[in-house]
């Protein structure tokens, strides 16, 4: 084949390849990129009670800085994020180690372990709403039969965030565990053999060898969970809608309510863009961390 003919073939092939990704790219631009640009524009608008919109400059953003609910929502978002992430990473690593040492995992056990995070978060919310009912729930019955005082769980302003973190951790700890298990299974066995010959006990090998080698996997799990945790919505909306009072009013819940309950689309856009910046900032920070712990 001559050079010219080869170039023509290559060009045609490139064109055909572009045609293959075109539907996905056009769809994403139409459904994501264009709407996001539109949201940025909406963030500079105000909507009157009659639905008339007018240009407002940075008014929505200066409102945000002086809005108590925004700062409260940011604090709630971060508290829920840190609490849930720590619970899921600690118990996820523990569960992964338990699964790893069980050697053989029948399919049925695996199915059982994935069932919490494959069920709709909304269903998890409905289920825990009944279990954690302050007066008739099974959770308080168990507490009382153990001689412990009953709790108000989701109905308590001070306990609602830890309770939601517990529900989310029930759902997603097995997911973290399965990711970490994948990391454990890919560790070179020679490292352990060498440590064993040197007389290291399991209590010494875990913090000194296993954990450092696992860190990249753990950070990956942390990134995947962070993205979901910072925009946490389903379980809160189904169980408390941000309550009691505003005790579980995360930024995402607050933004949703400003937009679709009070129909202040302009201010809601400013809130959501801020939250999106926080999510992407967190992902970038974790990515740096992953680079630092890679081996």
């Amino acid at each position, binding site marked *: 084949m001559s050079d010219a003919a080869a170039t023509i073939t290559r060009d045609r092939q490139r064109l055909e390849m572009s045609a293959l990704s075109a539907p996905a790219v056009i769809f994403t631009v139409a459904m994501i990129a264009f709407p996001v640009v539109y949201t940025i524009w909406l963030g500079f608008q105000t909507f009157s009670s009659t639905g008339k919109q007018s240009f407002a400059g940075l008014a929505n953003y200066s409102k945000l800085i002086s809005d108590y609910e925004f700062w409260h929502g940011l604090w709630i978002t971060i508290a829920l994020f840190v609490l849930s992430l720590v619970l899921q990473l600690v118990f996820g690593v523990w569960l992964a180690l338990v699964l790893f040492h069980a050697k053989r995992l029948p399919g049925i056990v695996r199915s059982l*372990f994935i069932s919490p995070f494959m069920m709709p*978060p909304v269903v998890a919310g409905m289920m825990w709403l*009944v279990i954690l009912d302050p007066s008739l729930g099974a959770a308080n*019955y168990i507490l009382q039969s153990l001689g412990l005082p009953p709790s108000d769980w989701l109905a308590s302003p001070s306990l609602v965030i830890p309770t939601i973190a517990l529900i989310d951790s029930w759902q997603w700890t097995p997911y973290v565990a399965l990711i970490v298990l994948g990391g454990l299974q890919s560790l070179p066995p020679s490292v352990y053999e060498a440590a064993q010959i040197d007389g290291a006990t399991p209590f010494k090998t875990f913090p000194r060898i296993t954990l450092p080698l696992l860190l990249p996997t753990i950070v990956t799990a942390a990134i995947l969970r962070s993205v979901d945790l910072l925009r946490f919505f389903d379980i809160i909306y189904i169980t408390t809608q941000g309550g009691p009072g505003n005790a579980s009013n995360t930024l995402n819940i607050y933004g949703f309510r400003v937009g679709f309950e009070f129909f202040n689309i302009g201010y809601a856009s400013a809130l959501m863009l801020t939250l999106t910046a926080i999510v992407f900032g967190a992902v970038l920070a974790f990515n740096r961390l992953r680079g630092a712990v890679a081996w």
Partner: protein
Amino acid sequence: MTDAVNTDRWIRRLNLVQLVLAGIIIMAPTVWMVLSSFKPSFEVTAYPPTLVFTPTLDNYVELTKTTPFLSYALNSLIVTVGSTALGLLFGIPAAFAVSWTRITWPAILTLAARMAPGTLFLLPWYVMFRQVGMIGSYTALILSHAVITLPIVIWVLLPSFDGIPRSIFEAAQVDGCRVTRILWRIALPLVASGVAVAAILAFVFSWNYFLFALVLSNGDTKTLIAAAFNFIGEGSTQWGALMAAATLIALPPLVLAALVQRWLVSGLTLGAVKG
């Protein structure tokens, strides 16, 4: 030597105890939900809670009588199947092209969409769909849910396409085979199992998705998940019917996920981890 064997046995037992404990914590709430759905109404709210009871289907009967449960389920099915089909239609060729050309930005673009909070898109969609009178239409719901399914399809299929030896394609190319033909006739049959996993994961996540249908559906097109809210409102004293609804809503994703459990985790991490 016997000491070492004994220690080994104890460690194994301790591990088994922990495994069983974790299994109980993971399973108990779901088992409780399913049990409650089969309890007679006076026993669902009994305190102390009962474990032994005569199972009944009353809650399920009541659920279908007092709520349009079946039409909600049909709506869910239409939206989920539609968005999964759309995700596969756009995602399969895109994944193939990304894998072949190593030009990754189309895949990363769809992934960025997965990372942003859904409300970010929902606000402009709401304004735009309202302007063209599409709020409450299946089209709006299917298009919005395809935003969920498309990145799943692309990222689950990428490693599958990457796993095919390039020589197969190059040979076909030398024979004058067009790229589209290579995709449908040669590559796709080779990644059939990957397509199945992608389709099931897309189905599960589209079925489970709450936020978009909450705003974009109306009384006629409400999906099961968006309607869950109504069940809670009506069911404040009707825990039996509420748990029956929860059980039925969770059933399709759980059954499907069990089918592909072996490939699920690597698929779910969108290629970040090979499980």
